[in-house]
């Protein structure tokens, strides 16, 4: 085999001399920051524009590369093994899955400048060891958008922060909107567990519970099964069922933008794109509804991480130091129109409507539950994210009962994690 490999190598070398044009341009300009994103950024992309501003201010250049989100898990280990990593990565999960590959940034940047909540969600829960191998960039929270035109048609007014809807009111109003509000679907929800799980937490359920230093699996508790049963009924009655049953690559954000949805459960990251893109309907944000145990919201977000083996590690750190100054972060936040992860920096919209919406979005932050924090700290997702999605899909599609879906998934999670089952 070795001989064959050497022979092949010889052929390659000859080939490289003949067709040199495609490959020998690896030499880099001395100060180019290589940044990895998960999708082709739009022209309004807040991070990219901030990076550009940094580049023009400091005279450095940018080398942006995109690796599609769903292919990152395949691609990243290869890049790491080939010591070919970008200098800066904007990511939601890579630092959590490959903690050792990222540099501890707490040496360069004082972690206390960040909102404690953002640190807890983006920084702490990602690293298994208590190091800061990622810093908060976009701090997001789940929230609810609504179609004002549809609400007006049925004479419904949106709930207020002090008086949110219960799940029963939500269901009744969604039904009403679908029947008389001129929308195709009363309500829609992103096909992401972080949307559904809010219902679970609000009804007092959780994925796991703490047992000393370890955990016990509680995902198949009676109240969780009841929540899922209710959710399946909602899907059959006034939601675009295909989104949660699978079978489509559609994104419900498109339905909402198009005016086909009355109430849309998504997250703050959509605010900016809705603000710039939606022209043909009036829309707003409303506080999330309350379940039997209270409200729930899920925080999340992406962070910036610097690989240990990055070529221009120092340049990336330079950027981060620049980025997290109050002035520059403020500029970034004004572009992003999202929540702030930096203490003392807030987004204060000039537009009156945006300012009002922003108040509602911020009120969601207080709704994050303890159960969610415990679930996150268990890192259960590292085991069986996909299996959970599949269990939900089958239940919503009616292939298996909600009880079976959750029982089977609980058994699987327990086996893989060796946490005991509670139910």
């Amino acid at each position: 085999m070795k001989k064959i490999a050497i022979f092949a190598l010889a052929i390659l070398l000859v080939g490289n001399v003949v067709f040199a044009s495609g490959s020998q341009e690896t030499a880099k300009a001395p100060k180019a920051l290589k940044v990895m994103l998960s999708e082709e950024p739009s022209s309004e992309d807040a991070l990219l524009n901030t990076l550009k501003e940094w580049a023009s201010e400091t005279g450095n250049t940018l080398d942006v590369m995109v690796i599609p989100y769903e292919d990152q898990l395949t691609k990243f280990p290869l890049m790491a093994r080939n010591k070919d990593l970008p200098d800066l990565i904007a990511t939601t999960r890579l630092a959590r899955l490959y903690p050792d590959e990222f540099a501890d940034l707490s040496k360069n940047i004082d972690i206390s400048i960040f909102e404690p909540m953002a640190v807890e969600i983006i920084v702490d829960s990602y690293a298994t060891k208590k190091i800061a191998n990622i810093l908060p960039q976009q701090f997001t929270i789940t929230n609810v958008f609504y179609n004002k035109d549809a609400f007006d048609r049925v004479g419904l007014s949106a709930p207020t922060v002090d008086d949110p809807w219960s799940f029963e009111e939500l269901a009744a109003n969604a039904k009403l909107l679908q029947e008389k509000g001129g929308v195709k679907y009363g309500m829609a929800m992103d096909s992401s567990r972080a949307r559904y799980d809010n219902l679970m937490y609000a009804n007092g359920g959780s994925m796991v519970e703490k047992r000393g230093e370890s955990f016990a699996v509680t995902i198949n508790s009676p109240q969780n099964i009841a929540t899922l049963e209710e959710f399946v009924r909602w899907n059959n009655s006034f939601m675009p069922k295909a989104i949660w049953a699978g079978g489509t690559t559609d994104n419900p954000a498109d339905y909402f933008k198009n005016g086909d949805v009355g109430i849309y459960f998504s997250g703050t990251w959509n605010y900016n794109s809705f603000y710039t893109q939606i022209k043909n309907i009036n829309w707003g944000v409303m506080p999330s509804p309350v379940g039997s145990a209270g409200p729930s919201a899920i925080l999340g977000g992406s962070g910036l991480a610097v690989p240990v083996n990055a070529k221009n590690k120092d340049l990336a750190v330079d950027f981060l130091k620049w980025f997290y100054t109050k002035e520059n972060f403020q500029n970034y936040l004004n572009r992003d129109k999202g929540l702030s992860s930096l203490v003392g920096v807030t987004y204060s919209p000039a537009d009156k409507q945006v300012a009002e919406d922003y108040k509602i979005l911020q009120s969601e932050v207080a709704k994050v539950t303890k159960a969610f924090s415990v679930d996150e700290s268990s890192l259960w997702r590292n085991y069986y994210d996909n299996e959970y999605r599949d269990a939900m899909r089958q239940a919503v599609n009616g292939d298996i009962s909600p009880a079976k879906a959750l029982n089977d998934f609980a058994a699987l999670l327990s086996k893989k994690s060796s946490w005991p089952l509670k139910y």
Partner: protein
Amino acid sequence: MKRSSQLSKVFWPSFWTFVVAAAMVFPIVWLVFSSFKQTGELFSYPLRMFPTEWTASHYAKVINDGFFGYVFNSLFLAVVGTLITLVISSMCGYALAIYRFDVSYTNLIFGIFLLGTLIPGETLTVPQVAVISELGLYNNIWGVILPVVTTTTGIFMFRQQYLSIPLSFVEAARIDGSNEAQTFFHVMLPLGTSSTVTLAIFSFMWRWNDYILPLLVLSEQRKYTIQIAIKNYIGFNGVDWSSILAASVMSMVPIIILFIILQRHIIGGLSASGIKG
């Protein structure tokens, strides 16, 4: 001589041909028109074939995102990959056919190559990329070209072609004093033309449409190919449909043009082994 002057005899079959052909290209035509619609119109009822307001802005955006660079990379990959495929497949197919009486194990070797079509290639991606990295071909266009240039289809096509050629041709050349390589080049290569064109278009098409291997092997945006560029518009939180449609349409154009230029030879190539030989 049999051609009837009656119009109806020609009309109905031609009519059905037209219906079938139109049905086959219709989804593409629809896609092309959609790519000129305003983003808002893409999802609004009533659906219309033609845009109410034509716009080329999506194309401008995609081009602005560096699409021509990706086109160049894909072209390089497809052209060089195809050239190598043609040379090595014709050599291999030739050897498997012409030396079948000299070498007793040609069928065994052919069988090993056939194994290549049975295995779901995608499932071997991970070890394959490991090998590519070990050879130092990571982030190198050759790491995308070399692993895929051996195609069983190509070897098969050339083998069939050369099987149909009488061995006396070869003997005649040898008696004239050609060595084996000269025999191959001077006598055999011209005979393989129709297979060559057919395999060329297939190979070009495969390389042009490759996705997973370029994605895994190339790690600089400026080395990306068009298929990766299209996929990059599918984000985690949303899909940039307008850009995807424009990029898809632009990715089709070169390959369709190439096909139209070469299409006569393709049908010929696949039928050549029999009566034409």
